[in-house]
């Protein structure tokens, strides 16, 4: 005859096992769910509303204040986004200084040109996948997840504002993810703007004492940029194309 285990001892054994399983299940669930819960916290900490459609971010570039030979805005942009400081023809340039000389008068000027963040952006029109898009606040961006690298937007842009990433990129900045085989351009430092800061080029120009670039909300009548564009003569590059850029120039 088989010796019988006392009932109470068997129950105690069972309840121990059950207890262990319960603790293990709770522990496992905790391990599995914690990162998700943490992500929810992170997501909730980020601004819950998207870009504000009542805002239109813009820039006013005063070419009379922009110094020939000064490239502080370019250097700041490159540093902010992890772009090479001495670019090859195949490297990206989100902002560049252009020296212009009027043929008839010989008048020379120097000014920065970057993505003009058009209200009617041709890059957005031609993008086959919708990777090129315009935020509600007027900032034109590239969704790096669905850009297939067809380069049609580069052909469509009248300002040569876009660059193609020709080779693998290293030392990327967390706020400016980049990827070989995709197209990119000035983001108007969207990561800084969303934190309430000014774009890197604007800060650098101010730090150099030139204050040639003003950034702000064109839709806010009280903003400095809105007041300036209301009171002084400004122009848009390739105004004939009726793209309504958010970047305006004074003095050209």
């Amino acid at each position, binding site marked *: 005859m088989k010796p019988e285990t006392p009932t109470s001892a068997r129950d105690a054994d069972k309840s121990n096992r059950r207890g262990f399983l319960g603790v293990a299940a709770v522990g496992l669930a905790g391990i599995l769910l914690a990162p998700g819960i943490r992500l929810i916290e992170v997501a909730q900490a980020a601004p819950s509303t998207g870009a504000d459609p009542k805002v239109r971010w813009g820039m006013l570039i005063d070419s009379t204040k922009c110094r020939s030979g000064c490239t502080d805005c370019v250097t700041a942009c490159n540093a902010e986004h992890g772009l090479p400081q001495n670019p090859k023809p195949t490297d990206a340039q989100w902002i560049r200084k252009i020296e*212009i000389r*009027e043929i008839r008068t010989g008048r020379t000027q120097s000014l920065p*040109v970057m993505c003009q963040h058009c209200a009617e952006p041709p890059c957005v029109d031609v993008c086959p996948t919708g990777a090129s898009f315009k935020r509600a606040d007027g900032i034109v961006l590239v969704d790096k997840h669905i850009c297939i690298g067809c380069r049609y937007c580069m052909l469509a842009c009248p300002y040569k504002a876009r660059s*193609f990433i020709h080779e693998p990129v290293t030392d990327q900045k967390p706020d400016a993810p980049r990827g070989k085989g995709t197209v990119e351009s000035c983001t108007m430092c969207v990561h800084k703007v969303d934190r309430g800061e000014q774009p890197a080029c604007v800060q650098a120009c101010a730090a150099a004492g030139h204050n040639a670039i003003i950034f702000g909300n064109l839709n806010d009548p009280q903003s400095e940029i809105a007041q300036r564009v209301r009171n002084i003569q400004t122009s848009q590059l390739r105004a004939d194309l009726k793209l309504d850029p958010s970047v305006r120039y004074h003095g050209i």
Partner: protein
Amino acid sequence: MRTRADIRNFWLLASLAAAITAVGLGAAYYMAVHGHIVTGMNNEVVWGLPHVFAIFMIVAASGVLNVASVGTVFGQPVYKKRAPLAGLLSIALLTGGLMVLMLDLGRPDRVLIAATHFNFTSVFAWNVFLYSGMVAIVVVYLWTIFERGMDRYTKPVGLAVLVWRFVLTTGTGFIFAFLVARQAYQSALLAPLFIVLSLGWGQAVFLITQSAIFAWNGRVLDDAIRHRMARLLGIFIVAALYLVAVYYLTNLYYAKQVSFVRFILLDGGIYPLLFWGGYVLIGSVLPLLLLFHPKLSCARTTFAASALVVAGAFAFLYVFIVGGQAFPLEIFPGHVVSSSFGDGAIAAYVPRLPELLLGVGGLGAALLLTVVGLRAFNFMPQDDSVSAKS
């Protein structure tokens, strides 16, 4: 009945085409791993040699169907017998062209995104449907030809093919015509220009293939049929020359385009050379001479003229696509400009081996599909008056 030599030749040609395709795929893989840095492309010339090959094949794929349309829609019996071959060539060329286009993407691994995310304001997105739709409609067209009892549908489907290929080539023209910022493009004339170019390029590809098939099978093409098809090619060449001339004259009419037209036609180095020497002389004048000179017209000269038209097509597309991008954008009219980003300067572009191999790989894929298709189905034009070589 197939002879041993036939079978050997098929495997030889199919293997050669497969090897060319494989080299092209290898080049594409190399480009995908290292990035476009291994090509001659840069931030100015963003579409290079692969687009020249791809657009040639896509435009010719549409044009070659003209043979089918003349037969099915306009009821010409000689062309009707050639409709199946035209259909096969169209599918083969379109596949080759799309292969090159897809593999030249910065992210060819994301090709599924192109098939699942559509922005309908983009002419590129329309073209995805136009290309896939054309393959489908040509397959249905071939089915109505080959399937017993379906022939009553051949004419309406043939009409649909005619309309579809016109829309497709209009779409290809629009890819460039909608680029309002570029002096080289931005012209509504590009849609009809591409349609007319497609007719000549398609006819030339058809004549080359037909000559090769007849030679392969030891048969001689009836001289009257050859003469008729050659004459049609001649008419297409003249029509294309006319529209190209009108396109550049229209550009000249706008004062601001003079510098661009000067660049392409006079002082742009390789581009005027390729335009006048490649497209006009080799690709148009010489073929016309070969096709219409009474003492020169024979099977061999028709083949040579067709090959020259194809060479001229590549020259034209190189000038159109690469030359059009090499000319700088005019952001500040009336100013001399300079920058670290090539503003105001003519862009440099020297094609490199990987992109050339990718383009040739697309041609290889088209050849492979044609050879296998010819082997598997009865695409051989059967003329009553065709005589066997003794």
